């Protein structure tokens, strides 16, 4: 009897793993950069030829890097949330226009609002790859020392802003 229970035992263990698996999303890739310094970059500013911006410019501040694009459907969902958010929260957000045409990007911001303190361009995805971006929108919360503390994969939801971002910002800013 005892030996015959081994297959059942293995099966029960398997079932438990499968059940846990149902609660996970196999498409979501966690970032290996959490807790590591944000990759250095210097990017052209959107709509201002010749001007550049670097992440080093933001040292000493807590800030959010938000990737977006005029062709991105989910960004249209997220954008109004960000526009609202900066009205009541003193958080500098740097918008990274990912693989986009500058003219399209400018038009999109004019149409949907601009919550960004700085808007920069990443036409060939080089900066995106350094940050491990694999889809748009994605956002990175970076602390005063330039370390990445949080990554939002996909668009922000009001819950994510309220429950994850706000408390962390408070913690990092104190």
């Amino acid at each position, binding site marked *: 009897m005892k030996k015959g229970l081994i297959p059942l035992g293995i099966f029960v263990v398997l079932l438990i793993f499968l059940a846990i698996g149902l609660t996970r999303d196999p498409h979501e890739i966690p970032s*290996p*950069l959490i807790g590591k310094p944000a990759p250095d970059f210097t990017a052209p500013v959107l709509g201002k030829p010749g001007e550049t911006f670097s992440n080093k410019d933001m040292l000493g501040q807590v800030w959010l890097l938000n990737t977006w694009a005029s062709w991105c459907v989910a960004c249209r969902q997220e954008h109004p949330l960000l526009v609202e958010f900066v009205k009541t929260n003193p958080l500098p957000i740097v918008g990274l226009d990912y693989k986009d045409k500058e003219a399209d990007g400018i038009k999109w911001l004019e149409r949907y609002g601009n919550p960004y303190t700085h808007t920069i361009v990443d036409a060939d995805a080089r900066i995106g790859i350094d940050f491990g971006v*694999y889809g748009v929108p994605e956002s990175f919360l970076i602390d005063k020392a330039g370390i990445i503390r949080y990554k939002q994969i996909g668009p922000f939801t009001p819950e994510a802003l309220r429950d994850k971002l706000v408390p962390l910002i408070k913690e990092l800013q104190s």
Partner: protein
Amino acid sequence: MKFLIVLFMALQCAMGAHADEAAPLAEDPVVEQRLITIAEELRCLVCQNESLAGSRADLANDLRREVRTLIRAGKSDAEIREYLVNRYGDFVLYRPPVKPTTWLLWFGPLLLLIGAIWLLVTVIKRNQKQRDIPVLDDAKRAKAQALLQETDSSK
């Protein structure tokens, strides 16, 4: 005359470019070959389980471009893999790295095989000690023989 010959030759060269051996698609076939070897073992992150070598997705094109740059910069295969893992995690490797979290994966089949062999040896040994089928008496043996003749050959 010489001028005409030179002109003629020059024209031949120019026209020869029109229809001949097709040029490789990649700028540098050597780099491309290495790219394919490396990219076959990398995962396209936005696809439903495709390799970086085969995928046509945008991000895949971008990543392949990055890998080409790294190859031209003289990086080794391991360095290129490290570059991608630093940014995207182990998920991007189709050949999982051998580390404590994957010991079970890489050594599991070997353990299973050893376990299987141990099982085999146990079963065979146990069977060696088994008592055989009880001996038939003559009447039953004769009946068995007769029935066996009837049955089709079993080999």
